[in-house]
């Protein structure tokens, strides 16, 4: 009953917001439409900038009274492989505005990505308006990498601590580990064992646990005011998914490959039709993993930031407080999504590992 009321309230609020949005748009056409458009453009750019990885760790930025843009944060090291190693501080880019020089090469950050340019910082474009400048291999300690390292250290501290507390207290967890122990057991008993099997699950546990906590913690960090969008970065999810892909196919047994290339229990023409589909499935499965995590986290960030941006679009008490309320509600949902996406990634990885090591004693069942 209460839940229904809440849903009704939310729906009506949403309607109100859209309504008032329309209303404000109506006003805009009469008066200061130009400024509003600017704000919207600015919000859009801010969001797309936020979603990308960055070469310096800026906590926030503001425009000072004299019109100068101030950044609060710190620079990070840039490491490039481009005919030798280039290491310099990201402060050389002056917050992605200027060209940096290193050992005679010139680099510029274009849409979050480091490209090689000439001394003037010229960007060349192809027909589809994509930059054609060469991209050196960028091993920089970017904002994402900083967060990955921090998360890694946090995980090491937490779980090595938990392991030690077991040794010290005779098999009983103490401290923060008490909170994580049930989660570890949940992953073992409700994700690994049902999907992979009692006998085989042991060798995948480490990966599943690492991946689960890694994604969960990074998702949660993404919701902090630091707002680092690590798990919403395609390179990160690609890396995680390719590990699942490699582990699945390296540990795939005879049965697994047989089910892909020569499906038992179906007529021969079907076997021939099924083989390419199954083979495609081998790649689609991890691909769906990487897209799902990326899209969910990206979408969450976009929604939250757009709603925050609405405050600046409305610039009214009603709209502002409504978007504040919506941001609050969505943030709570995002906390849930953060856990859910970690769970889904782990769960599906376990499922794929399960396919790879499944034993079929009952051939006729297929």
């Amino acid at each position, binding site marked *: 009953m209460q839940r229904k009321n809440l849903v009704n309230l939310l729906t009506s609020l949403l309607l109100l917001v859209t309504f008032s949005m329309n209303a404000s748009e109506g006003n805009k056409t009469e008066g200061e439409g130009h400024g509003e458009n600017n704000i919207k453009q600015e919000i859009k750019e801010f969001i797309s900038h936020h979603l990308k990885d960055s070469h310096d760790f800026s906590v926030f930025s503001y425009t000072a009274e004299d019109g100068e843009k101030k950044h609060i944060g710190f620079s990070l090291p840039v490491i490039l492989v481009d005919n030798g190693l280039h290491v310099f501080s990201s402060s050389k880019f002056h917050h992605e505005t200027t060209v940096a020089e290193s050992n005679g090469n010139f680099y510029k950050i274009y849409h*979050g990505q480091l490209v090689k340019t000439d001394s003037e910082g010229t960007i060349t474009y192809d027909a589809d308006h994509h930059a054609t400048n060469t991209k050196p*291999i*960028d091993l920089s300690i970017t904002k994402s990498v900083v967060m*990955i390292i921090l998360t890694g250290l946090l995980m090491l501290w937490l779980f090595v601590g938990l392991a030690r507390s077991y040794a010290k207290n005779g098999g009983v967890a103490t401290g923060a580990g008490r909170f994580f122990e049930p989660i570890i057991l949940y992953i073992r008993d409700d994700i690994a064992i049902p999907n992979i099997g009692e006998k085989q699950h042991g060798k995948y546990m480490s990966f599943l646990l690492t991946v689960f906590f*890694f994604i969960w913690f990074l998702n949660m960090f993404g919701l902090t005011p630091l707002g680092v969008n690590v798990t919403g970065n395609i390179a990160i999810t690609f890396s995680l998914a390719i590990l699942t892909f490699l582990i699945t196919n390296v540990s795939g047994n005879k049965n697994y490959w047989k089910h892909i290339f020569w499906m038992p229990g179906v007529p021969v023409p079907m076997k021939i039709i099924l083989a390419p589909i199954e083979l495609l499935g081998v790649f689609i499965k991890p691909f769906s993993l990487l897209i799902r995590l990326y899209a969910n986290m990206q979408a969450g960030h976009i929604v939250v930031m757009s709603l925050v941006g609405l405050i600046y679009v409305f610039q009214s008490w009603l709209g502002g407080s409504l978007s504040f309320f919506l941001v609050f509600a969505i943030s709570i949902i995002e906390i849930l999504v953060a856990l859910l996406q970690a769970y889904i990634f782990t769960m599906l990885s376990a499922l794929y590992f399960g396919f790879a090591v499944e034993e079929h004693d009952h051939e006729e069942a297929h």
Partner: protein
Amino acid sequence: MDKLLAEFSFGLFIVQTVLFVGLFLLLKKFAWKPILGAVNEREEGIKTALDSAKNARQEMESLNADNERILKEARAERESMMKDARQIKDAMINEAKEEAKAEGTKMIEQAQASIQSEKQAAIADLKKQVAELSIGIAEKVVRKELANDKDQSKLIEQLLKEVTIS
């Protein structure tokens, strides 16, 4: 797709993979293995403890049953022993009674016999004394009576008659 490819940073991919694999290996060695080991050990411990508790309970139950059985047996034995004892007692009493009775009868018989013989003896004695007395009396009487002959002969005759009769 285009946007995805444009956003993809190969460098970040490499850095992430290296860091993640490193983290994975470190956690595997220093965290997951000891944690899962400890948890498994603890679970095994709980399982064995439960099993042993169950065993102990079963043992206790069987022990209780044994005790019960032993108690029952003991009770039955006692019962039978008491029954035996009662029987023996009864038998002894009966025997004693019989014996006493027999003895009594025997004693009575003896007494009777001795009474009889005493009586006989007494009678005999009495008879003797009576005879002696009678003789004494007779003597005296005779002495007096025999003062005259006539009476004497008369008495002798009478006596003779009597003697023959008796």
